[in-house]
């Protein structure tokens, strides 16, 4: 069962009829109510790799994403939005097959009850044709949006085959950040980590340091990315970076094996290492609260 904080707030009367406890007074409660109105949560799903078909790695390769969609649909309280952080489809050298895989992915996620769903490409989707096929399904590869009091930035570090953001996108990012207050709450999504997480396994963005430098003057920045197929939390300066589990296979921790190889499917523990996450953005709190879930929606 996913959090019932909103249910609690409803029961407590915040946002509706106010229960006056006498502790802190009505003004305090009104402030809490106003704050609660800006509380929300979103889900991050990542690396679904639709089209992958190796049973040794995922014996339920055609069912895993569908199970995650069912799990999200079964949530008692739906998120404000869902973000898919790339590698929606698995790479193929065949342009027609790439479109078929992206179409298959889109058909499955269209079954989500929530319709506020956002997407961004991974290198498997966009790295071979500079995003041409991907844009036929999802026209934007980098964009911003505001939700409640949080500024969200989706960066594309995959459509350039060199896995760089590129000068144009960096200029665009600089211009966007100049419009933000230094204490603005900013959430950055990218597929690949912006920082040098583990270059030996290609887990970095070639010009990511420039983006990090631009973000560093802002005091409330957090990033969410995919690509490394595991939960991982690191910081660079005052920026917290959060890597998400995948929904097709898991990778071992960085540097824990001689080579980056997919962790084989374990029949005794199916779907181990796979899942999605909930991110609670609470007004007045700098750091979001992150809760991890299994493919089937069990809280971990």
């Amino acid at each position, binding site marked *: 069962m996913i959090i019932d904080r909103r249910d609690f707030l409803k029961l407590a009367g915040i946002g509706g009829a106010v229960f006056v406890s006498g502790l802190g007074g009505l003004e305090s409660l009104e402030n809490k109510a106003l704050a609660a109105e800006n509380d929300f949560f979103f889900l991050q799903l990542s690396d679904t790799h639709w089209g992958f078909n190796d049973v040794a790695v995922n014996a339920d390769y055609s069912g895993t994403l569908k199970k995650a969609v069912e799990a999200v649909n079964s949530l008692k309280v739906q998120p404000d939005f869902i973000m898919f952080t790339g590698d929606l489809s698995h790479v193929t050298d065949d342009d027609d097959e790439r479109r078929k895989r992206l179409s298959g992915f889109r058909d499955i996620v269209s079954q989500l009850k929530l319709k506020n769903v956002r997407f961004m490409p991974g290198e498997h989707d966009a790295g*071979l044709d500079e995003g041409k096929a991907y844009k036929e399904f999802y026209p934007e590869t980098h964009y911003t949006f505001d939700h409640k009091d949080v500024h969200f930035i989706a960066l594309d570090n995959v459509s350039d*085959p060199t*896995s760089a953001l590129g000068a144009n996108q960096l200029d665009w990012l600089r211009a966007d950040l100049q419009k933000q207050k230094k204490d603005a709450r900013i959430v950055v999504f990218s597929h690949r980590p912006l920082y040098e997480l583990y270059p030996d396994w290609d887990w970095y963005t070639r010009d990511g340091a420039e983006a990090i430098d631009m973000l560093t003057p802002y005091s409330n920045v957090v990033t969410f990315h995919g690509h490394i197929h595991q939960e991982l939390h690191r910081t660079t300066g005052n920026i917290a970076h959060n890597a998400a589990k995948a929904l097709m296979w898991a990778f071992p921790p960085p540097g824990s094996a001689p080579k980056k190889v997919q962790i084989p499917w374990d029949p005794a523990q199916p779907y181990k290492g796979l899942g999605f996450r909930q991110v609670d953005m609470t007004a007045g709190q700098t750091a979001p609260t992150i809760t991890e879930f299994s493919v089937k929606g069990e809280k971990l």
Partner: protein
Amino acid sequence: MKSMKSGLLICSVAAAFIFVSIGGYLRAAENEQVVKITAKKFEYSPKDITLKKGVPAVLEFTSLDRLHGFNCPGLGIRQDIQPGKVNTLRFTPDKVGTFPFHCDNFCGTGHERMTGSITVTE
């Protein structure tokens, strides 16, 4: 007459400088470790390379199909491998060990497998 002598002196010094420079270049070139590496989907050939520490190395990459990359974080070197040309990377190995490298320009289904290593010996 005096200016002619000065001119000859300058020419002699310049010739000596050029001779020494060329000689130095040739000596350096003779000491370089030159390795020719081809890259194609999804392999390098050779994929395992041995170099000597402290000896200048020249890696000459040729792509047989599309854009590839060469990134060896342990030695702090990288190179784009453009098709249709020789892509040259010069460096001097400064530490002993075995350092993995990989393609860092996404090149297709076997991209993740496109790896190799450089072993640097004393």
